[in-house]
C-alpha cells in the first residue's frame, strides 16, 4: 500500500489546516536532526506553515558540529603517504583550519569515499602495506556500524585498520541547549533514527525535566507535518509529553543488540562540539580492549594547530540561537562554493540548506 500523489497532498492539507488552526500564538520548534532540516526544505514545508510557527535547526548535523581540530587531524593523516583515509562523502568538502579533504585529495592524498564503514576492511586487506584510517563521525545511529566494523576487524585479524572517532550522542547536546538561558524552544522534533537505536528513555528529560513537548518524528513530508501538528496539539493544550510519531520504526526500547555492540567497543567520553565547546559525556572513545584500533593512540601525530573560522556564527546556528540568514556572511562572503563555516558545506548544514533551497533568495509566488 502506498499513498497516491493526491492522497499525500490532501493528507498534507489536513495537517497544514490543523496547524494553522492550532497556531494561535508564535511558537519556535526545533528540528534537532539535519535530515529533518533537509526534508523540510525539500518538501517546501515552511510554505505550508503559518508565520506563527518558526522551525529552527538544531545541532543534528554531525559534520557541522565536528570541530576543526578533528578535520585538521584527518587532513594531517591524509598527508602521510602510507595512510589511506576512508570516509563518508559528507566530510570531503568541509573546511578545516586551512585545507579540506577534497583539496588534499586533489593534491594527491589517497582518500576513499565509502558508503559503509565495512568497506574500510576490504581496502585494508587489499592494501596490507598501508594503514587505513576511517573517519568515524555520526550519532547514535552510525556509531554502532563503526563499532561492528571494529569487531569485524578484530575477528578477521586485520591490523592495519584504525578509527578516528568523532562520534557524538544527542541527549547531552540537547541538555546543553536547554541549559542555555537564551534558548527559546517550545517543542522538539526528535531525530527518528538516533532514537531507533537509543530508544525513548534518554529523551524523557525533555518533557519531564523541562516540560517541553517532544515528538519522535520520521522523515517523510507527512511524518514531519504530523510531528509539527502533534507538537502544536500539545502546546495548545499545555501538555509536555514524549510522543512517538515514527512508531513503524522506533520501538520504545530502541535496538538493544546494536547498543550492546556499541558498549563493547566504545565508552562515553567528553567531546568538543563546534559552537558548544566541551559537552561532558557527549562523545564516544574506544574502550581499553579496542585501544589498538584508535588512530590517535596507534598513529601519533605531531601537534596539529587548529583554529575556528573567524566571524562564522555556526555555533549560534547549531544551538538554535540565530537563523542562518542572521549571519552577516550568509550568501555574501559565505556560499557553498566559498564556504566560511562547516554549516555552509554539509548537505545537512542549516546554512547550506537555507542557501540551496532559496531562503532569502527565492520570492515565493
Amino acid at each position: 500500500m502506498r499513498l497516491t500523489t493526491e492522497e499525500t497532498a490532501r493528507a498534507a492539507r489536513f495537517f497544514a489546516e490543523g496547524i494553522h488552526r492550532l497556531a494561535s500564538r508564535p511558537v519556535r520548534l526545533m528540528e534537532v536532526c539535519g535530515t529533518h532540516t533537509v526534508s523540510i526544505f525539500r518538501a517546501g514545508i515552511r510554505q505550508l506553515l503559518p508565520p506563527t510557527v518558526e522551525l529552527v535547526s538544531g545541532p543534528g548535523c554531525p559534520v557541522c558540529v565536528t570541530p576543526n581540530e578533528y578535520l585538521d587531524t584527518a587532513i594531517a593523516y591524509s598527508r602521510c603517504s602510507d595512510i589511506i583515509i576512508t570516509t563518508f562523502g559528507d566530510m570531503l568538502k568541509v573546511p578545516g583550519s586551512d585545507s579540506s579533504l577534497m583539496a588534499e585529495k586533489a593534491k594527491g592524498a589517497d582518500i576513499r569515499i565509502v558508503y559503509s564503514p565495512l568497506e574500510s576492511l576490504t581496502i585494508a586487506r587489499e592494501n596490507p602495506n598501508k594503514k587505513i584510517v576511517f573517519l568515524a563521525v555520526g550519532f547514535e545511529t552510525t556509531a554502532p556500524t563503526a563499532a561492528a566494523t571494529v569487531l569485524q576487524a578484530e575477528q578477521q585479524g586485520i591490523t592495519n585498520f584504525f578509527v578516528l572517532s568523532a562520534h557524538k550522542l544527542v541527549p547531552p547536546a540537547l541538555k546543553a541547549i536547554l541549559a542555555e538561558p537564551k534558548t527559546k524552544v517550545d517543542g522538539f522534533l526528535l531525530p527518528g533514527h538516533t532514537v531507533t537505536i537509543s530508544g525513548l528513555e534518554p529523551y524523557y528529560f525533555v518533557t519531564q525535566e523541562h516540560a517541553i513537548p517532544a515528538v519522535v518524528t520520521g522523515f517523510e513530508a507527512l511524518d514531519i507535518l504530523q510531528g509539527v501538528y502533534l507538537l502544536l496539539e500539545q502546546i495548545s493544550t499545555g501538555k509536555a509529553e514524549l510522543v512517538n510519531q515514527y512508531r513503524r520504526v522506533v520501538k520504545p526500547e530502541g535496538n538493544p543488540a546494536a547498543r550492546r555492540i556499541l558498549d563493547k567497543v566504545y565508552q562515553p567520553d567528553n567531546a568538543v562540539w563546534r559552537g558548544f565547546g566541551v559537552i561532558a559525556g557527549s562523545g564516544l572513545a574506544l574502550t581499553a580492549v579496542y585501544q589498538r584500533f584508535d588512530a590517535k593512540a596507534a598513529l601519533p601525530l605531531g601537534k596539529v594547530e587548529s583554529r575556528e573560522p573567524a566571524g562564522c556564527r555556526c555555533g549560534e546556528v547549531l544551538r538554535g540561537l540565530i537563523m542562518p540568514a542572521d549571519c552577516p556572511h550568509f550568501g555574501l562572503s559565505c556560499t557553498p562554493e566559498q564556504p566560511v563555516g562547516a554549516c555552509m558545506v554539509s548537505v545537512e548544514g542549516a546554512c547550506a540548506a537555507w542557501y540551496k533551497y532559496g531562503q532569502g533568495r527565492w520570492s515565493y509566488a
Partner: protein
Amino acid sequence: MCLAVPAKIIERTEFMATVDIGGVTRQVSMMLLPEAAVGDYVLIHAGFAIQAIDEEEAQQTLALFKELEQYAADN
C-alpha cells in the same frame, strides 16, 4: 543526521543479508539486527540493517493518512 532507507530481506546468511530497496539490491550486514528473517522489512543505514520495520504500524500510519485525506476531502 542519519539517512536510512527501508528494505526487504530477500536472502540471509549468518552475518549478511541481501536486501531489496525499491527494486535495487544490496548486501548489508546483519550484525546490528541478528534476528531479522527473509521477508522482513528493515531499516538500512551505512550498510547495516539497524532496525526491523513494524509492518502493522506502517500500515496503520498509511491508513491514518488516508483517513485524514478523506476527512480533508469531506470538509
